[in-house]
């Protein structure tokens, strides 16, 4: 794949991340074992504590060489993970819950020690993981800024210098001298974010924190993180592929504690991750409509790893056979295309020649319609079909996860959709550097 998202967006920083840039994080053959049973886990903890205090040299050297086994009931939360990260790189860590992402972050952050292997971290580490851990609810916001700042390693002088900016960023000017327990959860998180990003780290760790607060604050916080990331090595954990695609210039896909993929082709990794998500068909609603058949057809469509795959931008044709039973008086039928989170991206309401929405009565209907260009970016998609009662506009039946299909990678872009625009020469006016573009 050429021209990945990361290279397109973060071109400037990715360019700096050459071999000459500072090596900030180095993870070498790192594994960590966990235990599911709490009682047993505590007992193993006891053993580990004794092992730390009375280190038997043989067991230890074996551990360094990675020859350590699992005890009963344990599993590898992370296994044989190795990678290096330089300044300017933004690494996206993706994978299912329990794939070992957070365990890896906690080891890099030095909270827990690896069971095998070695981790080296250079410079100041900033971790945006638990925003506001350490807040005391009885103390005022201002007092908590000093406490939390100190926890994060800021000196009093540094906080003094930045406190006005922290308060301004959190937009809590009116509340800053009230106790934090009177804050809404969003306000507390905003304050936590403002303090946590007040430092200038060399290594920045972000664990699912890019979507805090209201929309305006999310935009502001994304910009702040972008600024910080430009001069640091960043590790970002997110289940939101949009943020992965727009932030990262490298992705590691984790599966069952192992690195399944380490690539600079963000689209490819996101794609691979999407394939791991199994979209099961399901239906909801009081009932009355049954989808008998649903087929998508597009030129150049082919089967790939068990799923039909279409090329981005190709024209799709949908055939749908559905049955309405006698409970239904009149209804509208609306197919939609949804992404892997079942979030509907596009709906295709059917209109008659008067521009009114089509109505169907009881019986079996077969409809074949062109859908126009399918502009979704690479990923896994499926159909959602909703039958709405014409009078009440309530849902009769809703199917989701129908006919899963993939969109092929052919130069990934930002956003959920991509529409290529063919530029006519007369649409562009350019002048040499230094000159201004004059309105025509």
């Amino acid at each position: 794949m050429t021209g990945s998202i990361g290279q397109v967006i973060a071109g400037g920083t990715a360019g700096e991340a050459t071999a000459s840039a500072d090596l900030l994080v180095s993870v070498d053959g790192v594994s960590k074992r966990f235990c599911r049973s709490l009682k047993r886990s505590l007992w193993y903890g006891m053993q580990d504590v004794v092992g730390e205090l009375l280190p038997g040299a043989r067991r230890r050297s074996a551990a360094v060489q990675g020859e350590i086994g699992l005890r009963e009931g344990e599993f590898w939360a992370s296994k044989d993970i190795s990678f290096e990260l330089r300044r300017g790189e933004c690494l996206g860590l993706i994978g299912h819950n329990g794939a070992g992402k957070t365990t890896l972050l906690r080891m890099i952050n030095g909270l827990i020690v690896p069971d095998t292997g070695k981790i080296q971290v250079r410079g100041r580490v900033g971790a945006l993981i638990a925003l506001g851990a350490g807040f005391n609810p009885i103390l005022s916001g201002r007092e908590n800024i000093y406490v939390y700042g100190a926890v994060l390693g800021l000196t009093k002088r540094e906080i003094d210098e930045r406190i006005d900016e922290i308060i301004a960023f959190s937009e809590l000017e009116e509340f800053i001298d009230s106790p934090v327990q009177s804050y809404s959860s969003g306000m507390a998180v905003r304050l936590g974010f403002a303090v946590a990003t007040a430092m200038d780290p060399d290594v920045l760790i972000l664990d699912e924190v890019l979507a805090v607060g209201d929309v305006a604050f999310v935009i502001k916080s994304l910009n702040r993180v972008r600024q910080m990331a430009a001069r640091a090595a960043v590790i970002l954990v997110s289940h939101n592929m949009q943020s992965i695609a727009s932030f990262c210039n490298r992705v590691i896909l984790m599966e069952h504690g192992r690195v399944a993929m380490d690539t600079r082709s963000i689209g490819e990794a996101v794609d691979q991750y999407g394939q791991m998500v199994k979209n099961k068909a399901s239906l909801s609603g009081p009932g009355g409509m049954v989808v008998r058949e649903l087929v998508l057809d597009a030129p150049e469509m082919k089967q790939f790893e068990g799923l039909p795959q279409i090329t981005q931008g190709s024209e799709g044709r949908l055939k749908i056979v559905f049955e309405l039973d006698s409970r239904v008086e009149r209804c509208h039928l609306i197919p939609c295309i949804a992404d892997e989170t079942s979030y509907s991206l596009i709906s295709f309401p059917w209109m008659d020649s008067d521009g009114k929405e089509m109505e169907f009565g009881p019986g079996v209907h077969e409809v074949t319609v062109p859908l126009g260009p399918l502009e979704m970016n690479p990923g896994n998609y499926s159909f959602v079909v909703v039958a709405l009662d014409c009078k009440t506009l309530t849902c009769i039946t809703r199917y989701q996860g129908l006919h899963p299909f993939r969109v092929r990678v052919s130069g990934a872009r930002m956003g959920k959709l991509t529409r290529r625009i063919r530029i006519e020469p007369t649409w562009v006016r350019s002048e040499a550097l230094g000159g201004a573009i004059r309105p025509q």
Partner: protein
Amino acid sequence: MDLQQPNDRHAADHLAVREYTPESAMLHPSTLFSGLIADLYRGRELAWRIFVRDIQSQFRQTYLGYLWAFLPPLFTSLTFIFLQSQGIVRVEGVGKSYAAFAMIGTLLWQTFAEALQSPLQAIMSAKSMLSKINFPREAILVAGLYTVGFNFLIRLVLIALILLFWGIVPGVGLLTLPIWTIGLIFLGFAIGLTLVPIGGLYGDVLKSLPILTQFWMLLTPVVYPARTSGWAGWLSRWNPVAPLITSARASLTGEPMEGWLFALTVTLLSCLVAILGLICFRVIMPRIIERMGG
């Protein structure tokens, strides 16, 4: 925030390197010790912040406020003062007033008891922070010590009032009080630290501590003077808190200090064990954090 800092601040050579391996830090004692000192220094401001936060919030949502620093020991001693005044128990050799004797004793004991609980309590109350943020963890212990010291100072005011009320004159022995106070605090702290490996994992330890300290108090010459014979005599000889309590009280009441040499030995040993305990704390905390969850 100045986000446009010059780039040379980031030159890789003067960046601190941290390394995490499965190898026990105990194998490199010198690195371990210098790391401990460095983190104690690095965390000094944080320790102070946490301490200020704790005392600011400790009594903020109460009506009686700082009175709570000495109400519990005061009520404990009132029990014994009542028993003594009614002749139910008869304690001999307590100087001018049994009330003063018992109250000073329990106030001093309270300092030891608080110090004993402070390491585990600090870990438990900082749980969410410990499991999510990497900071000099020694700071929470130091903050705990500050709190114990602060509460002692509050109690000292009450002790002064007691001395004044009963007209007890301390004498030059008072100058040794700081030593015994440090002894009490560090003895409790050292014992508390040795409980961390088990108590950090199993909640049973923290739950049983108040019961055990209550029992321990009765085995210690707190509300009665040290015995020399029998079980009680054996206990006050081998109970490390006993000489500290007796010496501290004697320094306040102006009585002769008999066990001062033993008390001094205990003080010095406690400081040594506390340092060892801090090193162990440093080594095992990642293992504890790993198991304790958020």
